């Protein structure tokens, strides 16, 4: 009769080879019962130990316990293997073609002019300017007269006007605002310095349209009034705007300009973003965006005329201020490379869905 030790060896060999054959949970359970169950072969050996002499019992006992642990571990390992294999099989069966398109969701977008306007306003809001709004249909008084542009003033030619069919005392007095500047006076009438506002809105001109002019466009007016505000602050504020909206590389050209409601007045050009200020494109063609000048007018500005401050009751010796007006469509054109301003309000979906 073989010794118990030999039997243990034989059990181990048989158990391991059988375990390797087990393919499912049922087989594993069967295997467990056959070797480790209450009547399992190893259990029987352990029970038989009692009848052995002490010396042998200790030797065989130690070996039997080792084998019990080893088989338990082998079972756990085999279970893990089978589980892994099962999951792999499941994944394989249900493998997705991840390159298929997603389920369609409706995509809405804001108009490119809205997006640009928001970026511009956000830029000034972060500099402490507050956004306010005013009427689009205006009195001559606010659009012109309060801005030092009386009737019969030649500067009226700078703002070709659409008049509302309304007369008072034989004179037309209601119009579609030609700029957002009326809000300078409107706001100052109701507020005391310090003031920092930006006023966005639609403005209208009696103007033939071309690729860079539309009769309706969106303007942003800016106004700051306080003690100690100078042209240096105006330049600094506008330079910061250019840096944030057009990037740090743009060159700026500040020049003397004329508006009846600012003194001194200042225009701002930046070097053309399309041809990089060269006036010519890479292929040698003339650049149409800047009309081959290399420069693009971005805005008009200046120090608020002291008469306007005085007319709203401010002490024009004590307070100074600056103001500017800029066209948002122009900025949108430059940012997105749109070559004709009229495209914005034709609302072709094939254009709008690109923004």
């Amino acid at each position, binding site marked *: 009769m073989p010794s118990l030790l030999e039997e243990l060896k034989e059990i181990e060999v048989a158990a391991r080879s059988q375990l390797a054959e087990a393919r499912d949970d049922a087989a594993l359970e069967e295997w467990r019962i056959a070797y480790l169950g209450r009547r399992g072969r190893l259990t029987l050996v352990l029970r038989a130990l009692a009848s052995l002499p002490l010396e042998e019992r200790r030797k065989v006992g130690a070996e039997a316990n080792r084998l019990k642990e080893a088989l338990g571990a082998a079972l756990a390992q085999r279970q893990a293997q089978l589980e892994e294999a099962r999951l792999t099989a499941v994944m394989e069966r249900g493998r997705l073609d991840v390159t298929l*398109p997603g389920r369609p969701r*409706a*995509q*809405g*977008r804001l*108009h490119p*002019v*809205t997006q640009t306007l*928001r970026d511009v306003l956000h830029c000034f809001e972060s*500099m*402490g300017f*507050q*956004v*306010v*709004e005013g*009427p689009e*249909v205006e*009195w001559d008084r606010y659009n012109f007269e309060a801005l030092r542009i009386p009737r*019969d003033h*030649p500067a009226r030619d700078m703002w070709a006007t*659409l008049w*509302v069919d*309304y007369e*008072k005392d034989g004179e*037309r007095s*209601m119009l*579609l605002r030609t700029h957002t500047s009326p809000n300078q006076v409107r706001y100052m009438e109701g507020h005391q310095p*310090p003031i*920092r506002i930006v006023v966005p809105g639609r403005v*209208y001109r009696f103007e*033939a349209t071309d690729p860079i002019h539309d*009769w*309706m466009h969106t303007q942003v007016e800016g106004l700051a009034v*306080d*003690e*100690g*505000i*100078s*042209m*240096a*602050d105006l*330049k600094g504020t506008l*330079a*910061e705007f250019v840096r944030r909206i057009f990037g740090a590389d743009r060159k700026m*050209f*500040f*020049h*003397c*300009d*004329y508006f*009846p409601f600012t*003194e*001194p007045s200042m225009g701002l050009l930046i070097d053309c973003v399309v041809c990089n200020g060269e006036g010519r494109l890479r292929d040698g063609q003339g650049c149409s965006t800047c009309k081959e000048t290399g420069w693009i007018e971005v805005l008009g500005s200046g120090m608020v005329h002291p008469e306007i401050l005085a007319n709203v009751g401010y002490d024009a010796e004590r307070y*100074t201020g600056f103001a500017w007006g800029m066209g948002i469509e122009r900025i949108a054109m430059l940012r997105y490379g749109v070559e004709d301003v009229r495209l914005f*309000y034709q*609302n*072709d*979906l094939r254009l*709008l*869905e690109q923004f």
Partner: protein
Amino acid sequence: MRVPVKWLSEYVDIALPLPELARRLTMAGLEVGEIITSGGDWEGVSIAQVVEVAKHPKADRLVLATVELGGGERQTVVCGAPNVAAGQKVAFAREGVTVIDGRTGKPTALRRAVIRGVESVGMICSEKELGLSDYHEGIVVLPEDAAVGAPLASYLGDSVLDFDLRPNRPDALSVVGVAREVGALTGQPVREPSIEYAEAGPPIKGRVTVEVPARDLCPRYCAALIEGIRTGPSPVWMQERLTAAGLRLINNVVDITNYVMLEMGQPLHAFDFKKLRGGKIVVRRGRPGERLALLDGSQKELPPDVLVIADAEVAVAVAGVMGGADSEVDDKTTTVLLESANFNAASIRRTSQALKVRTDASNRFEKGLSRELPKLAACRAVKLMVELCGAKAAQGIVDVYPGREKEVRITVTQERLRRVLGVDLPVSRVRQVLGSLGFSCRHVPPDRYVVRVPHWRTDVRIPDDVAEEVARIVGYDELPMTQLRGEVPAAERQPRRELRERARDVLAAAGMQEVVTYSLTDRETLAKVLDPEDMAIYPPLRIANPMSREQEYLRTTLRADLLETLASGLRVEPGVVALFETSRVYLPREDDLPQEVESVCGVLSGVKPDRWGQPQGEAVGFFDAKGIIERLLAGLEVNATFEEGHDFAYLPGHTAAVTVGDGRAGLVGQVHPRVAAGFDIDQDVFMFELNLEALLPHVPDLPRYQPVARFPSVEQDLAVTVDESLPAARVQEAIEGSPLVRRARLFDVYTGPPVPPGKKSLAFSVSFQSPGHTLTDAEVEEERRRIVQRLERELGATLRG
């Protein structure tokens, strides 16, 4: 205003290349729109003088020519031209400048070259190299008077500066005015044109009388008499200048008046003296019904209050605008009465607009000219007529000057300059800049300047004007840049704007595309979408001077523009098109500006996408539109109710009115097919509209926190049968009226057997909950019974199943 550069250089030396000069002028406020050149722009080519010609050490045909470039700068180049000689004025191109290659005929940039062992930098140019002709056998030799160092373009060829001037600078509508600016910007002295002439004729006194009854409109009137004129063409040099400046040539007399206008900025008019009745000039207002034949051939009825120039009997010119045909200078004219006057700017502008006649004269007068100018310009023109028309000038000039003004003096402090410009400029710099512009400037220590304004600067009147003068000549780019300091003003809430921007975000997030359409439309388009009665209540405001019939009225609704845009969208997009706009509509008010109502309009139509994005799903329907407006209202934190609504543009029975608070805030529904057809849309279109102004009072500043329920809820289904016409919302309201019901959700609507005809079954999932304790089954049962009783009693409902 076109200024030929050669003409300009008669009054000031041009020491800068033209593009740089144009840049400086633009920076100073005289915008140069374009530099028009004939013969090439010759950038980088300047006038030089050959000072020495030496033999080339290794080549017989070549010489080493040393040229003086101005300012002591010299350059030695290898030259192969046979005609080069010391003392010649030549055209010199520096290294890097583009010239025409003599052999290939193509523009090439000049490079440093070693020719037979001798380095050569730059080139003395031939006509071919300058692009003037094909002649390449010798260099161009310029006349003696060419100024060394000046750009070639300023001497040879014709460059014209085309200015886009602002209306505040009528003084710059003249070559001399531009010369003054150039002088100030480049430190060059200005040579004023000569106004001296011999008075060889008899005195004017006694032969010409000038009366100015309209003193308020004519501050000054000068008249000169020139006799023995031989009319004919003006000299070639004058013709060239006038043509280059863009003027038409007439005859020597008229050309001279135009020439002096361009030169000095003062419009002049020449009358044939013999055609003036009574030897008399009367500056008066026009008489009722007075008519005049103008020089341009038109007949004008003179508007009331117009200022005219009359002889003893009738009007002979519209003052400051245009002369009359009857007193025109022609080839038989021998005696000219020359008018050089100052007229009221506003009056001239009114007249010019009333007559719809704009001339070079009216364009200048309306901007307000110097009152000192008429006499100077009259003398200048008389001098030219004497010299160029073989004429004799009468002794003296009649000068009626009722509007003489004191010289303008402005006191400006250093402190003000610093405040406005943000920089402390040295006293010497301020004085130098102002002096260069013709201002006289006395510094009164410690802080004041007393500035006398030259007569031609009618635009400078206050200290800040002086600040601008200083800044624009110093250069705006020289001013520092600083950031605003000081207190940031307290912000005020802008609820209207916040609401509108939130609406935009919510609608875009809901899958709608924002569009922006024009505010003006035509009446017919509005009539397509509006009830005639509504049109009568809010008649759209009309534009008095519309650009076209399509842009004649301010819109009172966004509907029409959205439907129009939808129609064009459906032509390019096979699936769903969903568009919205948030803009104002303009509702008229009596004797006031219109009410500008912030409005939202959305339109959607088309077939929804299937799994693959193909437009093969179900068609967009009423509940898609309603879902979006519900989402919008939820996004705006506004509670609204919906009930059946009616409107001209909507299909009855497929339309809901949106009520917020007690008022109508909008509509949602199917666009009436008849209205859709008006926009060439033949499929179902759904639309919603919201008046944001109506929502405003109902928008909470911030959402109000409700404690999360601490006790569990009990969910039960409740199905009732009601009349088919009963709105489901009524049933839901009744269920939710229970204090123990947190929410009731409709989940099924069913008609058909076993529900009797004319009835429908509504199934709700009801959530019972108490804020104070956990509900017992008995409490829920009891409350459920009460609800059912109320539904039966109030709505005629019966419990189902």
